[in-house]
């Protein structure tokens, strides 16, 4: 997605402020892109390349600019050198004119912003009072778009202003935003806490609201997306109260289910524009897996250093290159290495290599973008800030240091390379992490596998209840009212719940219908953060400065803010000195330790209710289930892990109350009889088999998280076994006769966010993929990249069969053979 519209449309001639044409082409180096590739082939770089794939070029599909477009808008397009529209842009205009909601899900730099700007410009030209609301997931993106949009409005001769409304907007600008501005740019958090509760002051805005644009729709997944869907429900209610029913336009990077995702967020059917009419040149994609340097531990050569080496080759050859790191820390390290390496090369001083990350002020961003276009900057090292549509124009090569976690994210990064029809290169350098190694083992998935789908659950009870409170505050509910696509019975059930808790108060309305009024003195939106579940956040206070540096939700507090924990924030390390559990405060102090800490948590899962059950059709049928569970976890202690070597250098105790959570889980049960007979046959103890199951669970967890496009931390895992002294109660079994070893994967969001049902649906594919992944791993007996290293449980003399082999044989025993 291009914020400034790096590709406004099909254009000839120079591009204006709207575009990102490089005025001074970089001196093509001695060799250029092809030269570097040839050099790599000669020098053996390709020995470690796991995938070499070239995506064919795609010609442009264009449509003429419609005659009916208002003159001013036509002129604005002409001023930007746009003489034709891409096919998807023309279609977007048609849909907008028909008042139909749609989502644009075309690749990076395909002119997505014009898809929504065009119909909106046309509407503004016809209706002087019309308003549009643009929502971006971050403040920076909104501010980035503001300038481009203002220029566009000016060139179209429209008097409607565009203004960003967020926490930093000063008072008088706020008034302008409310009363006059045609386009309001904001973020969901501001809409939620700053606009909707005050909608009476925005009456004119809402009454004339014609369009709502949700850009970067793919970023709204999981908890954030579920919150956003509820904010949209509230927005629609308020718009309806003021007599408006706006058209919604979404723009998304490529994800597997843009239409479904948009419909879930908007609660209404949408048209999907997924086919891009923008041309692309041939794109070569390489996956580079650094060689193993320690066979036992499965440790590979540093991916950061490797990425730096490859990048340096490209930059030296005059290829403008963008490098993506996974963390701010990684970015800083690579920046330093690159500058060190390139110092002394002509024209490649320190100022030619720049970092670019979140937290930069708009001015700094603009300066970097401009220098990139002018050719003063040759290489940019970035975190994923660029993924979020910041316009730096396009470059010739992209190097990803580490797998971004999703196929979609990877393609978004690669999409940054490629200037119109010229050839481009994307290199992924994989790290030793499990996901990276999975990608390196099956690199074909990068090209063939469908990209991930985004999941949300707007009806997650904890999220829903908080938004119903906000909604009731904004406008009383009347009997028969709807809340988005939430079933009416559920809405009334939830209102009953809120009544019971004294949050709303039912009265008989004028026509005898029940009306639920807000009935407390609280301001509910303040207590609801769109980025987490629940309301009881802890604040983290730096003892040296007495400043609050961050907030953390209650659950994470247990594992990350227990006393003595090393808390990492913005590449700094802090130690928790005191945790004031009562008052929700953690006091930390900056330290420079050579270790970090990980909490040891004891987790117990108890099935409350099985919603669906099934049997895996294998030789030895395995029961799987989906349902509601209680997860009780207690942090019992922590380990100190040394940086870099990952040695365990100490333990400590933690005394915190246990946490209970209701959520949804997927489970897979291995019958006791099977375990016993398998142990007998293999000549191992039962505990070894259970340990192997634990390894299997680790591998399933990684693959499930990957398939679901979620952070692995969003997905909990635990193995319940009858011989565990603290064992809970298994599914459908009485406590008395014990139960069978069961693998649980559950949503770590209270109430569930829809992950477990997806795992249940794709259980067979997940199991097969897990098997393939374990088998495909190069390690001997298990490594961090597959089932975890073979060091987990101390069982002297118990293991006659290596752990990895045991896992694979167990899978053979149940009849889950390798598929390819």
């Amino acid at each position, binding site marked *: 997605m291009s914020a400034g519209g790096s590709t406004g449309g099909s254009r000839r001639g120079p591009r204006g402020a709207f575009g990102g044409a490089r005025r001074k082409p970089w001196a093509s180096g001695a060799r250029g892109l092809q030269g570097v590739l040839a050099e790599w082939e000669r020098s053996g770089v390709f020995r470690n390349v796991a995938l070499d794939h070239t995506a064919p070029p795609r010609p442009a599909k264009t449509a003429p600019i419609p005659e009916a477009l208002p003159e001013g808008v036509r002129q604005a397009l002409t001023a930007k050198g746009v003489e034709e529209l891409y096919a998807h842009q023309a279609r977007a205009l048609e849909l907008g004119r028909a008042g139909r909601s749609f989502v644009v899900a075309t690749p990076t730099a395909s002119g997505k912003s014009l898809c929504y700007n065009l119909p909106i410009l046309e509407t503004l030209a016809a209706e002087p009072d019309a308003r549009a609301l643009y929502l971006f997931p971050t403040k920076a993106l909104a501010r980035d778009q503001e300038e481009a949009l203002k220029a566009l409005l000016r060139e179209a001769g429209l008097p409607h202003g565009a203004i960003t409304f967020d926490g930093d907007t000063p008072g008088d600008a706020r008034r302008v935003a409310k009363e006059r501005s045609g386009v309001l740019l904001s973020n969901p958090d501001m809409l939620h806490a700053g606009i909707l509760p005050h909608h009476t002051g925005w009456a004119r805005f809402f009454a004339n609201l014609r369009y709502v644009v949700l850009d970067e729709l793919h970023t709204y997944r999981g908890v954030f997306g579920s919150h956003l869907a509820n904010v949209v429900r509230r927005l629609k209610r308020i718009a309806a109260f003021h007599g408006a029913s706006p058209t919604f336009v979404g723009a998304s990077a490529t994800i597997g289910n843009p239409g479904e995702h948009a419909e879930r967020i908007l609660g209404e059917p949408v048209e999907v524009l997924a086919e891009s009419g923008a041309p692309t040149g041939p794109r070569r994609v390489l996956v580079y897996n650094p060689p193993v340097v320690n066979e036992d531990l499965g440790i590979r050569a540093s991916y950061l250093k490797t990425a730096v080496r490859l990048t340096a080759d490209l930059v030296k050859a005059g290829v403008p290159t963008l490098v993506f790191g996974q963390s701010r820390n990684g970015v800083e390290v690579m920046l330093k290495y690159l500058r060190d390496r390139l110092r002394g090369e002509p024209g490649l001083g320190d100022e030619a290599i720049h970092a670019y990350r979140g937290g930069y002020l708009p001015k700094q961003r603009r300066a970097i973008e401009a220098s990139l276009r002018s050719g003063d900057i040759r290489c940019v090292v970035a975190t994923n800030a660029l993924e979020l549509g910041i316009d730096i124009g396009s470059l010739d090569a992209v190097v990803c240091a580490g797998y971004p976690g999703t196929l979609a994210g990877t393609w978004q990064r690669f999409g940054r390379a490629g200037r119109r029809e010229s050839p481009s290169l994307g290199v992924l350098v994989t790290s030793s992490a499990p996901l990276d190694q999975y990608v390196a083992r099956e690199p074909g998935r990068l090209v063939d596998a469908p990209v991930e789908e985004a999941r949300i659950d707007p009806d997650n009870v904890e999220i829903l209840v908080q938004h119903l409170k906000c909604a009731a505050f904004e406008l*009383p509910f009347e009997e028969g009212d709807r809340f988005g696509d939430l079933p009416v019975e559920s809405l009334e059930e939830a209102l009953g719940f809120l009544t019971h808790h004294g949050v709303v108060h039912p009265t008989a309305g004028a026509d005898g219908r029940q*009306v639920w009024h807000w009935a407390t003195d609280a301001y509910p939106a303040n207590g609801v953060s769109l980025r987490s579940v629940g309301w009881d956040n802890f604040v983290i206070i730096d003892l040296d400065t007495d400043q609050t540096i961050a907030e953390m939700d209650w659950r994470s507090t247990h594992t990350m803010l227990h006393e003595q924990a090393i808390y990492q924030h913005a590449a700094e390390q802090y130690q928790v000195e005191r945790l004031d559990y009562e008052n929700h405060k953690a006091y930390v102090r900056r330290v420079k330790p050579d270790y970090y800490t990980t909490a040891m948590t004891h987790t117990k899962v108890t099935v409350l209710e099985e919603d669906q059950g099934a049997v895996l059709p294998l030789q030895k049928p395995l029961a799987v289930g989906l349902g509601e569970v209680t997860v009780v976890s207690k942090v019992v202690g922590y380990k100190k892990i040394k940086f870099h070597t990952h040695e365990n250098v100490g333990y400590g105790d933690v005394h915190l109350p246990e946490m209970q959570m209701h959520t949804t889980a997927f489970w897979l049960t291995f019958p006791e009889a099977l375990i016993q007979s398998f142990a007998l046959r293999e000549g191992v103890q039962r505990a070894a088999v259970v340990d192997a199951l634990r390894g299997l669970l680790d591998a399933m967890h990684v693959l499930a998280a990957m398939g679901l496009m979620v952070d692995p931390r969003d997905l909990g895992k635990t193995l319940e076994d009858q011989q565990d002294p603290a064992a809970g109660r298994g599914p459908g079994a009485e406590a008395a006769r014990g139960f069978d070893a069961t693998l649980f994967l559950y949503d770590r969001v209270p109430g569930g966010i829809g992950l477990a049902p997806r795992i249940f649906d794709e259980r067979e594919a997940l199991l097969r993929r897990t098997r393939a992944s374990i088998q495909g791993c190069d390690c001997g007996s298990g490594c961090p990249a597959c089932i975890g290293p073979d060091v987990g449980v101390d069982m002297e003399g118990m293991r006659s069969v290596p752990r990895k082999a045991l896992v694979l044989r167990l899978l053979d025993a149940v009849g889950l053979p390798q598929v390819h």
Partner: protein
Amino acid sequence: MKLGRKLARLGSAGPGSRAPSAAQPAEPEACLRDDDASSAGAPGGDARGGDVLGDGMLGGDVLGGRAPRPGGHSSGGDVPGGHSSGGDVPGGDVPEGAPRGCHDGGAGAPSGAPGIDPARRARIRRLQRSLDALVSKGRSEMRARPSGPADAGDALAAALRSSAPTPRIPPSGRSLPGARVSTPYGPVHQVEHWLEPHHAHGVVPVTSALEAESPLVASLALDPAFREIDLSRALFIDTETTGLSTAAGTLAFLVGVAFFEDESLCVQQYLLTELGREAPMLQLLAERIRAASCVVSYNGKSFDWPLLRARYVMNRVAAPPLPPHLDLLHCARRVFKKRLDSVRLVDMERELLGFVREHDVSGAEIPGIYLHFVRSGDPGRLDGVVEHNGHDLIALAAILGELAKRFRDVRREDDPLDHLGYAKVAERAGDAERAARFASAAAAGGGDEECTLEALLLAARVARRSKDVEAEERALLTALGTRAAPRVHLELAKLYEHRRKDPVRALSHAMTTCPAEALEERERRLKRLAGRLARHNVRKRPR
């Protein structure tokens, strides 16, 4: 998972929620059902002893079967609570046993209109008409004779009392102040009382507000819109709300207004007895505002009015155009911020009016008291809230009067810091003469050095603007005697250079202006003065 199951397992509903009690009221709106909608707008079936029919907009409404109007009653209990006994409830005294307020019998009581016989209904209408006539006559003439409406009210009340149901005793044993009146917009629950002309809040009579000259008020408010305002038609407004924000979910459940009719201040408070029935009271308020020459509030510019405007939008009632708005908080802050750390209404009440509230409901308790009433139907301490609001309204009038009075003439007994505050206001308002008077009073008042210095500098500023060089010089030299501050030297340097054309003295002062002026500026001044001095000496030499 089914939503209900999940909800059942949710421990709490988050901030603002209460632990659900087993004894949740089974009939949430047991109280104050709006049951007269069907009976042609006349609350006929609503046989409450205290109810009086009238158009609600008029001063002549009678509460509690008695007319607490000037001269119309014997006891002195016309002030909400306050001075008299603590148990005094605003809204007038209700005869023992007379049912009032909301509890009109609940389920078992015959509260509906259908049972009423046509003859009686006709009688009620007739009485209502006569009452209306009387009241509007009272409005058009000099003043309604207090006995008139009271008689009508009594007659009507007697007529209605015959079928009054037995009141349900609320859990707290307390009753809801005021009564429901019907208005052209629908029923409004109203508490009303009239203050006698000589009524004083603390030591200040409320009628002092009537003595405030509009130009003086315009200066005080720094708002020229008040220059020609007829303050006898001012509407004092104060609301009690369910929260501190002005967002959509905050209600103004008690809207209090006060206005003068001749010498008497009428306090009317509209109480929202049922959520969702705000429209009539908002319309009533709109009518009051339209009839007023201006609105007077305390912090109303940033709180009460934005909140009320939100209520108008929420209830789809057209908000009245707001006449000039005098926010006394701003006025008080300008005058007293030097002397007082806090200029809340109660601080002003104490400082200006010598009034200290006893047993006042604290602001923080108010939402809870109201929400308790909403949930349970039990008025609890709502009477205290109504009293609190009544005090606020009366205080508004007295504060306006007192603020203006102290601004009118310098009063020696006032604190020099107050004089200084007033001098500044007068200066900003362009009232040079008054600014000079208050500044010299402040300078001579024996206040601390800083106060004196500031007052003298202000006096000098005013004198300069009125081209009174003598006075300016005098003030500055006195200031210099108080403290040889750089800023005094700077002013003297300017005076001697530009007005006295005396570069010698100007230069001597200009040497010591640091740090009152920026270095470069000082250098320019010194250079310029040196030049003038040279020419000055040249001119002098031939003599």
